[in-house]
């Protein structure tokens, strides 16, 4: 192909060379579009990971405290003044509870790894910090003496939101997401599957059925925020479902997930060959019996895959949840479906608006957790599809 063409050739048509060049250029455009979009993805992921990684470690300082009865009453006075400016208030305020749990400490001197506050932590991580020069040199000195250590940030995974950046965690949001998704899936899956069964197995092919099908496809493309308006007007204001609750959020998201589940379930049902149904009818089974005992079990993998994809999408949704009030300050993990909760994307949203710099890394770390969950869900869906794929 690349051979040089002899231009004195009788069959040589100059246009062909031009056309072939154009053809090559066209291929190049197409290739570069793919490369471009893939590099967007790569850049995007690297950017988020770079911002989020620091949040998974946090600095602590080794301190010795001689404990007496007084200590429990005034935890903020136990440290030297320049030290107490560096140690997290969240750590100090929980100190009395610690002493209460360990009465044997009273009268002794104990060594602790105390959490540093966000400004000190940011300085040690090399980002800009509002610390004064003498505080910075104090930190440098402590670092030299080996009294400062950066440890895995367990706080992030085991506490909820906090107004103290170094104490803020993702746990309450994770629990909130799980509970909300429970509501969403337990509503959307049965309704979605039933709709698909009706449309695929029972419905006559008439105008009404067509309208339902067009409506379902349309529902998939309606802006998500409008589902929020529905949730606000109907679930909260009309039916009195508590605001900010997993119930309100879950119901709203369920309606949003319906079309995905319906469409994938329909495809799964359709892929079950007619011969299975005919065999059932020949044995005298009713339509429902055939569907329930034979078609649905065979379509199950497809339904499951679709449900997982719907779950992943609902889990990342924020806009309608803002409208139904799921952006309250909720530090404790939610315990019931009717009390206020926050979910992972909503937590990411609230953190991204916080003034303190330390929240940027928290936000990115939250994004990493959320993306890990979503990508694993999607991978599971793909693997399931591969595993159960049957060619009839």
């Amino acid at each position, binding site marked *: 192909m690349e051979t040089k063409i002899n231009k004195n050739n009788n069959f040589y048509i100059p246009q062909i060379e031009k056309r072939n060049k154009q053809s090559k250029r066209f291929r190049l455009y197409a290739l570069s579009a793919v490369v471009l979009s893939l590099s967007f993805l790569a850049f995007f992921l690297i950017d988020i990971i770079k911002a989020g990684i620091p949040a998974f470690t946090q600095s602590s300082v080794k301190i010795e405290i001689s404990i007496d009865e007084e200590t429990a009453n005034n935890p*903020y006075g136990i440290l030297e003044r320049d030290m107490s400016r560096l140690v997290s*208030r*969240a750590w100090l*305020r*929980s100190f*009395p*509870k610690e002493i209460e749990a360990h009465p044997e400490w009273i009268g002794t001197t104990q060594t602790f790894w105390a959490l540093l506050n966000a400004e000190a932590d940011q300085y040690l991580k090399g980002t800009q910090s*509002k610390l004064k020069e003498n505080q910075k040199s104090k930190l440098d000195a402590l670092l030299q003496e080996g009294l400062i250590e950066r440890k895995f940030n367990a706080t992030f995974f085991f506490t*909820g939101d*906090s*107004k*103290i950046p170094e104490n803020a965690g993702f746990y309450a949001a994770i629990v909130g997401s799980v*509970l909300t998704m*429970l*509501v969403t*899936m*337990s509503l959307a*899956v*049965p309704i979605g*599957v039933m709709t698909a069964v009706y449309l695929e197995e029972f419905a006559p092919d008439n105008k009404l059925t067509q309208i339902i099908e067009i409506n379902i496809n349309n529902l998939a493309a309606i802006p998500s925020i409008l589902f929020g308006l529905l949730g606000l007007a109907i679930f909260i204001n009309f039916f009195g479902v*508590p*605001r*900010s609750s997993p*119930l309100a959020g879950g119901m709203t998201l369920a309606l949003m997930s319906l079309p995905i589940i319906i469409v994938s379930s329909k495809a799964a049902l359709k892929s079950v060959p007619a011969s299975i149904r005919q065999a059932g009818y020949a044995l005298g089974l009713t339509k429902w019996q055939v569907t*329930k005992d034979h078609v*649905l*079990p065979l379509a*199950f993998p497809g*339904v499951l895959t679709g449900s997982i994809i719907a779950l992943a999408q609902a889990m990342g949704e924020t806009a309608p949840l803002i409208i139904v*009030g799921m*952006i*309250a*300050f*909720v*530090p*404790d993990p939610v*315990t*019931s*479906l*009717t*009390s*206020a909760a926050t979910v992972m994307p909503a937590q990411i949203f609230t953190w991204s*608006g916080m*003034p303190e710099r330390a929240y940027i890394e928290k936000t990115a770390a939250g994004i990493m957790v959320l993306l890990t969950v979503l990508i694993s869900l999607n991978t599971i869906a793909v693997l399931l599809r591969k595993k159960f794929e049957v060619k009839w």
Partner: protein
Amino acid sequence: MNMKKSATALLAVASLWASASANDQIRIVGSSTVYPFTSYVAEELGAITNFATPVVESTGSGGGMKIFCAGVGLDTPSFTNASRAMKPKEFETCQKNGVTEITGLMVGYDGISIAQSKENPKLNLTKEQIFLALAQEVPSKDGKSLIANPYKKWSDIDASLPKREIRMIGAPSTSGTRDSFDEMVMEKASKSFPIYGGKYKKIRTDGAYIPGGENDNLIVQQLAQDKDALGYFGYSFLEENHDKIAGVTLNGVEPTAENIADGSYPVSRSMFVYMKNAHIGKIKGVSEFIELYATESMIGQRGVLRTIGLIPMPKEMLKKVQTSVKNKTLLTKEMVEAHTILPLK
């Protein structure tokens, strides 16, 4: 088989719902300005006691009052935040709906500071000058009629002001900061021009006034870049960003914590939290929460809320507030009309 599974899931969900008991968690609504302070105290209550951490939602002062006054049921909020005192009309609504016993807590002050890039020479403005720069319509030269705002530069308003283009970056129209700015600067200043008849007029929309986002940090960033622009935001942002921006003096008064607390800085307001006394004993931690809020270590001169932007009240005032909270002083019509939460002498 699929159906059965979803049925069990539904059952599980139903049982979870049934186990819900609304009365072990305090709910707080109200002003977005007071929200960060109340959230901090809420978190503190959860951290140092065994009570559940209260849930705080930002609904705005007006919206908060509406939900708060809706009734005494345990599904209504126990507290509401307000960046202003309760209004007589709201008090009446409360009374009508059975919310008769209310105790107020004064949290402290919030100052709205006007600032510019640090590299500019110092600037002093009066409220009237700001008003003339930002109003949609201003009095004509003879003062007899209203004309569309012709001013492009500050020097057009007063020859002594610098020849800088008028550009003010401020809060969006839904924020509490904007509400206060409108009320304390624009509305007050409009009173000194008789032609308005005391009525508040609109802010101009030809680009001289730029509503920033809810994120005040971005306003700070823009001010550092755009040397001509002025911006206004809660005082805490000025304090935190002294390295980039400097306050503009208003009527000659510097925006500092002291000047805001003693009222000499003209754009400051008090913030309040109102408690529904009917919930004491019914929801765990209600009175503990408000008592914790009123402590020295929270809202005192050295309290922790100072670090996140609260301007604390003077010591003697705090003493009075603490006694009033301790005695659960009930709000009366007279107190509401006097815009206070303290008992009248």
